[in-house]
């Protein structure tokens, strides 16, 4: 089967005060249809730049990015690429266009030239998926951060994308808002079969992904299932990244001679393993 997203040897340079900065340095990624990929890395690691490449907001200096086989450099595909690969940004306030929730959700399909009746259906459906139907007539500025971000997600879903890229959607939210958004993202992947690329610096959000990619200095330094990646506790810490708390605890216990597997990711697993000890 054809991959949803192909990033082939992408290099991206930009100028900052006459100085050339390499934001992406020979990055290769393939994302399969229906996959849930999490990209982690700290500020300046190039993860947001990579996200903008998938949506054709940025074009690679070298190499190529393909979405469903369409090259982002190909101008005639640009709108179908953006429809196929939707994007949700970090600041919920700065991506809502209209003064009424349902009007904002309708913004994407309106841009695509969808029939008014069909837009109405899509808006209703999108709001149902993110569980915001009762807010459809409200003004966005009266909603909480988590709710605004769900509206932004609904706005993307209404365009019927195959894939959604989340660029740190939880960074500006409080814990409960973060939970709302994460649950919505998981639901999209599970129930709507939408391919997800989720960029974050909260390690806990990476635990349930199909695959985790760790970026540093514009390069991919680690890639694998959450279990494979988070078992590399030393290397991650060397990069200045955290591992989920439980994994960290298991790592420390292991160092002290407690016989635990080194790929524990959740509290439940930890409890199981500890009970098995004797």
């Amino acid at each position: 089967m054809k991959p949803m997203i192909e990033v082939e040897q992408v290099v991206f340079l930009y100028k900052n005060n006459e100085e050339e900065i390499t934001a992406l340095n020979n990055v290769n990624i393939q994302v399969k249809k229906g996959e849930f990929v999490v990209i982690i890395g700290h500020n300046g690691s190039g993860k947001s730049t990579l996200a903008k490449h998938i949506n054709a907001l940025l074009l690679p200096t070298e190499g190529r990015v393909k979405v469903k086989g369409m090259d982002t450099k190909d101008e005639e595909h640009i709108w179908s690429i953006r429809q196929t690969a939707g994007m949700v940004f970090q600041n919920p306030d700065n991506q809502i266009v209209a003064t009424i929730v349902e009007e904002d959700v309708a913004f994407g399909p309106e841009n695509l030239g969808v029939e008014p009746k069909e837009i109405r259906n899509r808006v209703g459906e999108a709001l149902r998926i993110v569980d915001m139907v009762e807010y459809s007539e409200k003004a966005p500025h009266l909603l909480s951060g988590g709710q605004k971000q769900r509206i932004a997600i609904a706005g993307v879903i209404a365009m019927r994308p195959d894939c959604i890229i989340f660029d740190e959607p939880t960074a500006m939210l409080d814990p409960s808002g973060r939970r709302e958004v994460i649950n919505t993202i998981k639901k999209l992947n599970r129930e709507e079969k939408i391919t997800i690329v989720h960029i974050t610096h909260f390690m806990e959000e990476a635990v349930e992904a199909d695959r985790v990619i760790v970026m540093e200095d514009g390069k991919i330094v680690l890639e694998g299932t959450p279990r494979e990646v988070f078992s590399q506790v030393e290397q991650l810490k060397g990069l200045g990244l955290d591992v989920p708390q439980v994994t960290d605890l298991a790592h420390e216990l292991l160092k002290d001679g407690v016989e635990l597997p080194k790929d524990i990711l959740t509290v439940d697993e930890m409890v199981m393993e500890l009970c098995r000890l004797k």
Partner: protein
Amino acid sequence: MLKDITIGQHYPTGSVIHKLDPRTKILITFALIVGLFIINRFVGYIFVIAFIAAAITISKIPFKYMIKGLKPLYVLIMITFLINVFMTSGEILLSIGPVNVTREGVYQAVFMAMRLILLVIGTSLLTLTTSPIMLTDGIEHLLNPFKKIGLPAHELAMMMTIALRFIPTLLEETDKIMKAQIARGADFESGNIINRAKSLVPLLVPLFISAFRRADELAMAMEARCYRGGEHRTRMKALKMEKRDFISSGITMVFIGILFYTRAM
């Protein structure tokens, strides 16, 4: 709180006037403005007052609320009144030092003040009965024919929508910056006007920077959602003229006719 300010002051009651197509309402308001300038004697005002009073009654907006809307214009109306009283030459009624009050002046002043008051009430009725979104939609549709001569109708409407969308966001931000600066000893309340204006500069600078950053991010988010201007764009809520629109337009035409008649009388 700053948050409660609503620009345009939409007052929903669900009346027939609220349900009218925004295009109809904009055109009627426009006709009313023209009508007010057609009038050249007091008789005409009787009809205008009757017309506006009828409209307010149908709209179910309390009269008190309408009068309250005049408050901010109090000074403007007074200035217009006084200038007209003192600056018109004619038969002298009263002399106060170097200035004269003339019969023509008093007549003119009352005439102009009434025109101004009716103008404000008439136009505020438009914003009170129409939500901002509907209003921009109506403006966009009415300006569409001028696209041919290069008027960016869609872009203008989009600009207005975004401005309306960001008013509460920026007000909230102003509030935050103000509090942050007050916490560090800034003083926005004491001193004369010049001092107070000066203290606003450190408030406006961060606000502007943030507004530009927001604009940048919003532009990116809009592009990511396939925004490419007005072409090929459809609307979820299409505007539709109905029977009530034709009836109210008809009434307005009769009304304007009467005003012309009073002028020629």
